[in-house]
């Protein structure tokens, strides 16, 4: 029995026939659709390396059964930049050295994009740390990550003011 799925993936409509209901969104992205940006860290919802946006909200793709997402809009790290122009959060991570080995970075960046969209943390460092607590970085690049998110959040607020 296959499970038909219609998804919008990084802006593109996709139709997928899922042959196994056990497939998580993370495994669908990485193993079947060739999008290896979202990383499999713990695969148990503890590290945040698999963070993507579903219907505009950041979630752990490793704990989400793909079968339950019929009709959803999914944004992964691969869909963030516009051509060669980096998303402001990506640019901020580079500017502030928000990584070392890079393994957690796609999850950190997607989580930061979600955090800024949610709009509850602003540029308050304590609220950013709390809002990013679902993303672990074993290299300990937290200081740079915080600076990057603060900077990107400030720029997003500035853009809103200008608009």
């Amino acid at each position, binding site marked *: 029995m296959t499970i038909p799925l219609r998804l919008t993936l990084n802006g593109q409509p996709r139709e997928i026939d899922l042959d196994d209901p056990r497939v998580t969104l993370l495994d669908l992205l990485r193993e079947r659709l060739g999008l290896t940006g979202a990383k499999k860290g713990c695969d148990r*919802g503890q590290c*945040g390396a698999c963070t993507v946006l579903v219907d505009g909200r*950041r979630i752990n793709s490793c704990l989400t*059964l793909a079968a*339950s997402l019929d*009709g959803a809009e999914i944004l992964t790290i691969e869909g963030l930049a516009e051509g060669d122009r980096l998303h402001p959060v990506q640019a901020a991570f580079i500017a502030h050295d928000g990584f070392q080995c890079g393994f957690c970075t796609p999850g950190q960046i997607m989580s930061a994009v979600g955090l800024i969209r949610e709009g509850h943390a602003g540029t308050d460092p304590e609220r950013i740390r709390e809002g990013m607590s679902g993303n672990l970085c074993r290299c300990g690049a937290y200081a740079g990550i915080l600076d990057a998110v603060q900077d990107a959040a400030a720029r997003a607020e500035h853009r809103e003011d200008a608009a």
Partner: protein
Amino acid sequence: MRHFDYIRPASVPEAVAAGQVPGTAYLAAGTNLVDLMKGGVATPERIVDITRLPGLSAIERLPDGGTRVGALVRNSDLAYDPAFAKTYPMVAEALLAGASAQLRNAATAGGNLMQRTRCQYFTDAVSPCNKRAPGSGCAALGHATRIHAVQGWSEHCIATHPSDFCVPLAALDAVVETAGPDGTREIPLTAFHRLPGDHPERETDLRPGELITALRLPPEAASFRGRARYLKVRDRTSYAFAVVSAAAALTFKADGRIAQARLALGGLALKPWRVAEAEAALAGQAPSPEAYAKAADAALAGAKPTGEANAFKIELARRVAIRALNQAAAGTPARIPALPASPFGIV
């Protein structure tokens, strides 16, 4: 993960009909269930996916002044709903103290009630565990039990319920609405989770195949909006389960004495721990550290550690209860949470 059949019903009656087959589990966000399935702790043969069911995602203010929260309302949507957070601030505070932002964006109100204990001997899928494998024994007793119960445990199971959300819900007399093959039913939240007794495998009052459709807060719950707090103490500042927590809410009379008090404690037992004597001890009293201490003592009456490792939780819970009452008396902060996560530095 063990193979399962996947069913996606289109309505609540269809879901309930599909849920009657033994070996079936309902899937909402799956933030706990999928994790347990990956670990071989939960092994359902059939999954009934309720994530897209219509009519279960609304937050409704009721004509009587109460509020109904659909079972599929996401934790973050509930916590950040301005009217809900203003009316039930300690519920919002508890929601935002739980898990991570990613998990709160997915996890549902109904699913929160159904989450399983984080007892390591339950989740490792191999240790003797009367909850996971009835009759196999309890590996936790006599071993590392820092997170285990000090109230309501039995020789068959010493696990605790991990929810933050359920603690203020218990204090506010929330009601669980369900749909089953015999129609709808209402269960007081305080009677929803069962203490282990001789049957730790029976975790809730739900009947086979019964589905949670909503939670309801009664009209009186709103009267505590001005003086209500949830205080969570944990091993790190964010993204950790409570070692001990307290939901405390007060109303005052015109003369400054306490009219009504609500107090429920988390991290102590397999359900939120609410003691009528503790609340009665506060009614009519002038607010004072001594009055709060008497209430805390009543809430902890009969507490017993399962070993040396968790004996500290009794005194910690007493202090957390007193502090939460003190914070509640000082008034609900304008912003919830007042600080991102740490209980230190708040009134």
